[in-house]
């Protein structure tokens, strides 16, 4: 049986890669994909602790996080489509004003 902290360290590495993506990229969609990566790293942590402590609550949390990530992806991508129609770019540095 694989020790729990292996999964925790893998999750920490994936989360850090996601942080790098959010901090250093300009493409809005890539930043969004990095956020999805971080969400998945957190899911892995929830499952690792759920197995360690034999709690089903962690699994329920992962279930809800997946549903919320789906909602977030739909709305976020709609925002990017709107941004692209108005500005012809999805460079997040171009979208520094709160009005069109």
């Amino acid at each position, binding site marked *: 049986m694989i*020790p*729990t902290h292996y999964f925790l360290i893998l999750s920490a590495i994936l989360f850090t890669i996601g942080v790098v993506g959010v901090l250093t990229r300009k493409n809005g969609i890539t930043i969004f994909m990095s956020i999805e990566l971080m969400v998945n790293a957190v899911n892995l942590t929830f*499952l690792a602790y759920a197995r360690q402590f034999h709690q089903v609550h962690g*699994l*329920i949390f992962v279930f809800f996080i*997946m549903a919320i990530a789906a909602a977030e992806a*739909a709305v976020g991508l709609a925002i990017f*489509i*709107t941004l692209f129609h108005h500005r012809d770019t999805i460079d997040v540095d171009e979208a520094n004003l709160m009005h069109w």
Partner: protein
Amino acid sequence: MEFTIFFFFAAVAVIFALVVVLHRNPVVGALSLVASFFALAVMYVLLEAPFLAALQVIVYAGAIMVLFLFVIMLLNLQHVVEPSTRPIQQFLGYTSAAAFGFGLIYYLVKYAVFAKHPDGPFVADARTIGMELFRAYVFPFEMVSILLLAAIVGALLLSGRTYQKREAAP
């Protein structure tokens, strides 16, 4: 055997995650993210949660990432050259992320190494999750359904209005 599978798929997940972050083409990034999510589904199986592994493949790799790919192709982004970030932003981003990562792993190794293994098998199948979901978590479950409805309406409203405006403009 179990450890071989773990390390192989951990390497797959990390390498494809790096491709997502470092590659300039968003289509390659989205497909690598699908591969990374598949490797994470294997991790879920190793963590004895086969139901959530199936959900990971169907919902994440299947639905959400297809949505990403559709939007990338709809906006014709595969030929857009991304301007490189300012050097100061790159430097600050990499150093602060590295510091964050090292801190995270340091404290994980220091405090979260469990001496005892989890005792006995713990198989979280669909039945276990369903019973708990409809016993203790009914209210959050309904809230999530309302949230998904709100997301549908919001997405339609956001992307539909620009379409009408585009048609009316010229």
